[in-house]
């Protein structure tokens, strides 16, 4: 039956993007089910996951849109970026090509979400260090240059998976607190529950401060 707790103050929309096979769905599964899904089928279009987390004593429901990585779905999945409060941009540390494609994913994420969308770069499959093809340092540098959060994680062992989702949420919450994320903006990707001021109008003022965050 309905067991989920009903009390949360915010809903954040997340998207997970990145090349096919980097482990987007596995990250989500690990995050929501705390299990590793060994045989993960290709995602068609988009799949969903939800989990309630806590940031600074506030319960936040994450509504996660796990997009298909296959190129043929790119046109469809682009439609889903809008209104995301957070984006997890995933590559596979053992496959350099997935890292090289990041700029294209980043362009999409920047163009299709609002300027306040928090983007976190995730180097997945960190458990396969022996087959590493992308160093931590270069990815870290790429993240800093582009103002992204960054973590290496493993959907298999669960390492840093929780943190990946949490770090982004913290950053979003911080943006709300310091006022840089306008909740009334239609595409903030955040819904605030208890009688939030609803009279706001669409504000399209860009708020470009996106400090890189050392994690």
């Amino acid at each position, binding site marked *: 039956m309905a067991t989920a707790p009903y009390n949360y103050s915010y809903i954040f*929309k997340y998207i997970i993007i990145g090349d096919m096979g980097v482990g987007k769905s596995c990250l989500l599964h690990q995050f929501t089910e705390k299990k590793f899904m060994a045989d993960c089928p290709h995602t068609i279009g988009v799949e969903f996951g939800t989990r309630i987390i806590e940031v600074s004593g506030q319960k936040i429901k994450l509504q996660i849109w796990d997009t298909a990585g296959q190129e043929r*779905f790119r046109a469809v999945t682009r439609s889903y970026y809008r209104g995301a409060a957070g984006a997890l941009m995933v590559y596979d540390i053992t496959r350099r090509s997935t890292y090289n494609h990041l700029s294209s994913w980043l362009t999409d994420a920047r163009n299709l979400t609002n300027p306040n969308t928090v983007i976190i770069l995730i180097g997945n499959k960190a458990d396969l260090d022996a087959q590493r093809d992308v160093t931590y340092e270069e990815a870290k540098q790429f993240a800093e240059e582009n103002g992204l959060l960054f973590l290496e994680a493993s959907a298999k062992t669960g390492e840093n998976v929780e943190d990946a989702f949490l770090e982004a949420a913290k950053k979003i919450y911080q943006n709300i607190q310091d006022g840089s994320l306008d909740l009334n903006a239609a595409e903030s990707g955040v819904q605030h529950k208890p009688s939030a001021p*609803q009279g706001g109008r669409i504000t399209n003022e860009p708020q470009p401060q996106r400090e890189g965050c050392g994690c």
Partner: protein
Amino acid sequence: MSQAEAVDSVTAELSSQLSLSHTEHVATMKDEGHHNEALDAENVPSELGQKESTFVEKLDEGALPTSSQLPENQETECSELLNLEVKLSELDTGENRENEQIQTTLTSGKGWGSWGKSILTTATSTIGHGITAVKEKAGATLRKQNISSLAEESKEHEINQTVESDDSGDHMPKELPASSPSAGSHGMFSAITSAGKSVISSGLGALEFIGKKTMNVLAENDPGFKKTKILMEKTATLSQMLREAKEKEKERIANQVVMEKTAHFGILFDEYQGLSHLEALEILSNESELKVQSFLMSLEGETLEVMKRDLVAIKEIFLVEQSEKSEDEEKELEETGCDGEEFVNVLTELLFELHVAATPDKLNKARKRAHDWVKEVYSLRSEYNEKQVEENSDPVFEGEKNGKVDQNNAKSVEDIYLSSIESLAEVTARSIEQLHKVAELILHGQDIEKPALDQAQVLNTLTEAMCKEVSSLRKKFIDVLTSAGSKEKAEVLNPWINGVMLEGSNSITYIQDAFQLLLPVLQISHIQITSLRTDTVKYSGGN
């Protein structure tokens, strides 16, 4: 715009839509059905013309200060309706300051991030409240036969409905019940309020009568109402409506001091990700609609005519579904039921026919679970009955024992009710997920060998199969409730049965609404295939 005018137009729109939606259900109203079909046929050709002129009309309407604040609504199929909505919200903000959400309707877009389109939502949830209130009051007096007579009475209550809608203009603003959080001043809602007024002023007899009628009206017409909205306005509304209805439900639960077991369709539907899939499907539908519109604007002359004809042909398939299903047919199917693997086969076959690689695993599992627990309840009950016969115990103790065994062994009647609602929510969510997947696969531009027209046909059949399945599940649930609850008091049992009835019809409506969202998807797919073909022709011609 005066309020009265706004209300009148809402009422008129609503009534016409309500009568339209009736044709789905009312077999006895063949004459009326034909009438509506004729209307449809007339409307179809003008539809596209209307779309074309949308932009022009929008400019004309610049006089309305608010219309300029809705720059994103370019895809509005019918700008009048937009207009209408604006008027409505003007009404609301004027009438009821408490309803802050209304303003978002004007200012925020249709994205996920907004709580927008509150009118719809609040109206829906208000209806929800209305239903609950009416149900609670009248449920006690309602007998089981009322349910079975729902169908025959639909004609009557339509008249009822019309009458109520007619005078809604006068009553509406004052009669918002204090408990209602919103001023969803739609005809639908006023129907409830005016009914509510009569309830108070009349005696108990009237209470029973109106309660019953209102129930019928709501159960039957709420779907129509929603359909109206979704057809009118292709912005992301249904999922938001549901989402907010769910939020309200949640708040209500949170406020309940005594934690009792409750079944909340909306919350369960969301937990099965039904809302998310619906929302995503709406996004695809809206974007496709925009693309179709802009493509049509780029055409002219004969090409435009040809394309329009094609698109209208696709649209007609989507309209057929609305009018041709009769109650008789539904009943027949309920009786034959798809108990075995038939539904699975039908589903798989249809998906195969669509040439999309979407397997119905999740949906199949959901429906199997539903059928399984019903079977289990029956087998447990028959075991229990056998024991009863064997023991043939002292009649004085029988009652006591009865209670005990019911609690320990078999599912309690309430559990059956809760499982019913959960199963309906799950199957509905999975059906919508399935339709969403199909939309994604059609849109992602694989080599489609099947023309959009044929795909529309198959999808129509697919949707029908899903609705029939829900319908047959609903019947099963009610049967098992009735048999398990034969010893319960009517005032305990009836609200449960009514709840299953209502959520069953809602489920069907959601699925049908989701199907309607596929229309622009198929249209853009058709355009893409056609232009591809033309390009190929040109290309080979060039060679």
